[in-house]
C-alpha cells in the first residue's frame, strides 16, 4: 500500500500522502464558534475561536497532486486534507473486514463499498494497531501558507495504484447513483 522508504519523496506533497501531527479542523460546530470584535460586542468581528480541545492527529492529502505541486504555483491556493481515524474505535468491529475487502473499488469484486472511508493498512509509521480509515466526510482545507508545515509532517506515501484507487473512491463518494443502502 505504501511506497518503500527508498521511494519516499520528502520534498514533494502528493495526493494520498499521509501526514501526522497536524491540527484537524474538519467537522466544526458552526454554532459553537466564538467571534471576537476589536471593541467588545461592537463592530465587525476580526477573529474567531472554537472552544474545544484541539485535535492533533493524522490526515491524508486529498488535493490532486498537480494542484499542490510547487512548480504549479498558480493553482496552489490551499491543501485539502481529511482526518484519519482509528479502526479500534469502530462501533461495529465486524464491519471492518467488509471495509477492507471492498476498500479498493477497482480491485474488488463487490458491488458495494464503504465509500466514505478509505482503509489504511497497519504501519509502524502510524499509532493505529489495526490500521485506520481516511474519513472523506470530515475533509477540510488549509491555506497555502501551511504548505511547508504540512510537508514537514509527511510520514507515508501511497503507491501509485493505491492512490488511483483512493481518488476513484473519493470521486464516487461525491458522485454516484442514488441507491438504497444494503442493511
Amino acid at each position, binding site marked *: 500500500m505504501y511506497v518503500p522508504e527508498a521511494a519516499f519523496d520528502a520534498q514533494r506533497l502528493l495526493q494520498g500522502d499521509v501526514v501526522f501531527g497536524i491540527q484537524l479542523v474538519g467537522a466544526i460546530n458552526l454554532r459553537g464558534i466564538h467571534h471576537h470584535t476589536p471593541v467588545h460586542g461592537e463592530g465587525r468581528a476580526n477573529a474567531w475561536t472554537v472552544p474545544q480541545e484541539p485535535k492533533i492527529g493524522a490526515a491524508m492529502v486529498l488535493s490532486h497532486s498537480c494542484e499542490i505541486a510547487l512548480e504549479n504555483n498558480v493553482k496552489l491556493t490551499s491543501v485539502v486534507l481529511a482526518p484519519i*481515524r482509528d479502526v479500534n474505535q469502530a462501533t461495529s468491529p465486524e464491519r471492518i473486514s467488509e471495509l477492507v475487502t471492498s476498500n479498493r473499488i477497482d480491485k474488488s469484486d463487490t458491488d458495494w463499498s464503504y465509500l466514505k472511508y478509505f482503509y489504511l493498512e497497519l504501519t509502524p509509521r502510524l499509532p493505529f494497531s489495526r490500521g485506520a480509515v481516511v474519513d472523506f466526510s470530515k475533509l477540510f482545507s488549509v491555506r497555502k501558507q501551511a504548505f511547508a508545515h504540512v510537508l514537514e509532517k509527511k510520514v507515508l506515501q501511497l503507491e501509485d495504484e493505491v492512490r488511483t484507487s483512493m481518488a476513484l473512491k473519493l470521486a464516487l463518494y461525491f458522485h454516484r447513483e442514488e441507491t438504497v443502502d444494503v442493511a
Partner: protein
Amino acid sequence: MTSAIQKVRDSPNSTGTVIPFPSQGPAHDLTESSYFVFPQLEGLREEIKRTIEAVVTEAFYRAELGRSLPTDDPFDPVYISLLRPDSVSAEDLDRLSQFAHVVDRSSLLSFDDGWDD
C-alpha cells in the same frame, strides 16, 4: 515588626476579640491556600478560571489581530485570471460511470472517537 502591623495585630474586631495576624517567617508566603481560601467559591474555581482565560484570550486577539495582516485571498481576481482549465479525459469519465452503481454502506459504520455526534 512595623507599628502598622502591630496595630493590625492588636486591633479588636467588633466583638473585642483579637484576631491573630499570621506571623512572619519561612512559612509566611503568599500562597492561595494561606490567604485566599473562600470555601463557598471552591465550586466555582473552574468557571472563574475559564472566564479569566477567555478575557485574556480576547484581549490578546484585540491586541494582536487589530493590526492589519497581509491577506492572501484565494478568490482574488488575479488568481482567477491566471487559471487555466483542467483537462478531463473521456477515460476518467468512463471509469466513474463504470463504478457509479456501487452501493454505499458507509451508514453501517461509525466510530466512538469524538468525531461522530
